């Protein structure tokens, strides 16, 4: 069973040899493969081999286009600097007001370097890594609005000029839907929707500004025959029921959520959680025993309906041995609980 088969089978609720392993590795993968991070972000010819090497050597079941949140922001006009060995930095070009955001112009993903690169990246993954679950990515509406206005301004816009925010979010969502289409056409099995800022805005604003648009994106992914993953890191305890209601097949849960247990029963048969080990406290700084215990506990909380993952990016300071322990822990679940089953039956049990 390869990574793609394992993930799709798990999502269908059928028996698999072990739960899928989907760690988010970005700077870690670049460093491990000896690739400059500036290249990792901007050049699929640098990133694809790095991601594939990590997947092959550590037994990951997926390859992803994840690197930083600025692909769409660049296309919308944000100035982004790419340090050689660090995360890209936003250097300005923010929209000056909510009113200006409401006049945002859509972009064509093929006309901008970062978005075009992502499409090429998926084509390359499809060519060389087709046995893995290939995950493309778009920014969610709230995260993108935060990138374009800055988080503080964006926060205030929700109260000061909600109509303008809605208009801007509609443009952002339309672009995301177009970008989703291009990525699925390029060969993505799944599209991740990253809307991290939502964990900071609470359930009321989430329902007012984000939910329907995320759901539109998820519905569109499904219409194209692909899998949808919703990633909101941070403490989403108050959002998880709504995140599940978007219909996303994979709902990411970060370690700041106290437990997945109260929400496992809300999952539809096609839905699973992904998480929720603490990337720093456990995966980077913990012992192999800590890592295994955390993976087992996540599995227990989700009633077996959980992809093995950390809540967010594995930090670049994580040792190779800890990443190996993380991978090994996904296999060890088999020894304690028999065949991993993605079925609703075991999920609700």
């Amino acid at each position, binding site marked *: 069973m390869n990574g793609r088969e394992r993930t799709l089978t798990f999502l269908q609720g059928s028996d698999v040899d072990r739960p899928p392993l989907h760690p988010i590795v*970005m*700077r870690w993968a670049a460093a491990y493969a000896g690739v400059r991070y500036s290249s990792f972000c901007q050049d699929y010819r640098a990133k694809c081999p790095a991601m594939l090497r990590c997947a092959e050597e550590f037994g990951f079941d997926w390859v992803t286009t994840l690197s930083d949140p600025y692909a769409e922001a660049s296309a919308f006009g944000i100035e982004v600097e790419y340090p050689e060995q660090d*995360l890209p*930095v*936003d250097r300005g070009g923010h929209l000056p007001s909510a009113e200006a955001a409401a006049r945002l112009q859509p972009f064509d993903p093929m006309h901008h370097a970062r978005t075009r690169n992502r499409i090429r990246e998926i084509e390359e993954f499809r060519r060389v890594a087709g046995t893995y679950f290939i995950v493309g990515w778009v920014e969610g509406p709230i995260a993108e609005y935060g990138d374009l206005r*800055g*988080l*503080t301004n964006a*926060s*205030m816009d*929700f*109260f000061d000029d909600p109509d303008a925010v809605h208009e801007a979010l509609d443009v952002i969502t339309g672009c995301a839907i177009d970008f989703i289409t291009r990525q699925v056409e390029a060969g993505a099995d799944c599209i991740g929707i990253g809307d*991290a800022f939502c*964990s*900071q*805005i*609470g359930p009321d*604003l989430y329902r007012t500004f984000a939910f329907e648009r995320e759901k539109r994106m998820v519905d569109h992914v499904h219409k194209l025959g692909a899998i949808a993953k919703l990633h909101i*890191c*941070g*403490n989403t*305890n*108050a959002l998880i029921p709504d995140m599940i209601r978007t219909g996303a097949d994979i709902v990411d849960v970060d370690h*700041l959520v106290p437990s997945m247990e109260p929400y496992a029963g809300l999952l539809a048969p096609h839905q699973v959680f992904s998480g929720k080990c603490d*990337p*720093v*406290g456990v995966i980077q*700084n913990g012992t192999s025993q800590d890592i295994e215990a955390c993976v087992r506990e996540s599995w227990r909380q989700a009633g077996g309906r959980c992809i093995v993952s950390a809540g*967010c*990016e594995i*930090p*670049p*300071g994580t040792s190779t041995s800890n990443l190996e322990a993380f991978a090994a822990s996904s296999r060890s679940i088999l020894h304690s609980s028999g065949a991993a089953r993605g079925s609703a039956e075991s999920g609700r049990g």
Partner: protein
Amino acid sequence: MSKNEALFEAITKGKRKDVADIVQKLIDDKGDVVDLLNETMIPAMRFVGDKFSRNEIYVPEMLIAARAMQTGLDMIEPLLADSGHKARAKVCIGTDLGVDCSVEKYEAAVNDGAQVVCLSALLTTTMPYMKNVVEKLKDRGVKIVIGGAPITEEYAQEIGADGYGDDANDAVNAVEKCLAMA
């Protein structure tokens, strides 16, 4: 002077125009601005901070309340200075400096007299930079308080920070502890 209920509500709801109107009227009436600050404005922000700590409100609500508070503070600040009221300390808050702040920005704040520097990271991707800031400032006699979604008290201890705040409200408590230690 007792709590000004209307101003308290205007701050906690983030209504900066109401805050401006109420404070202006008090100034026109020659009211006691020190009392207003201590009995109404600071308690209002404490109230907001407590609600934030209990996850009853979130960052946007907190920010508009802080903005409303600042509107009032800007109006009474000259009067506070005239009355001999002195700030307890100078604190540099990283989020007020911007995002992805370089260590040089914090050094500039310390050069400008900051006694405490507060750092926040929203993502695991940015938190390792906090260690650079701590190391760079450790010999400057400044206290450093850190917090943010992925940060834990253990991480604060590990990188040598002087304090940890679980949220903005808790950070205020951590700063007060640091100032008592200084």
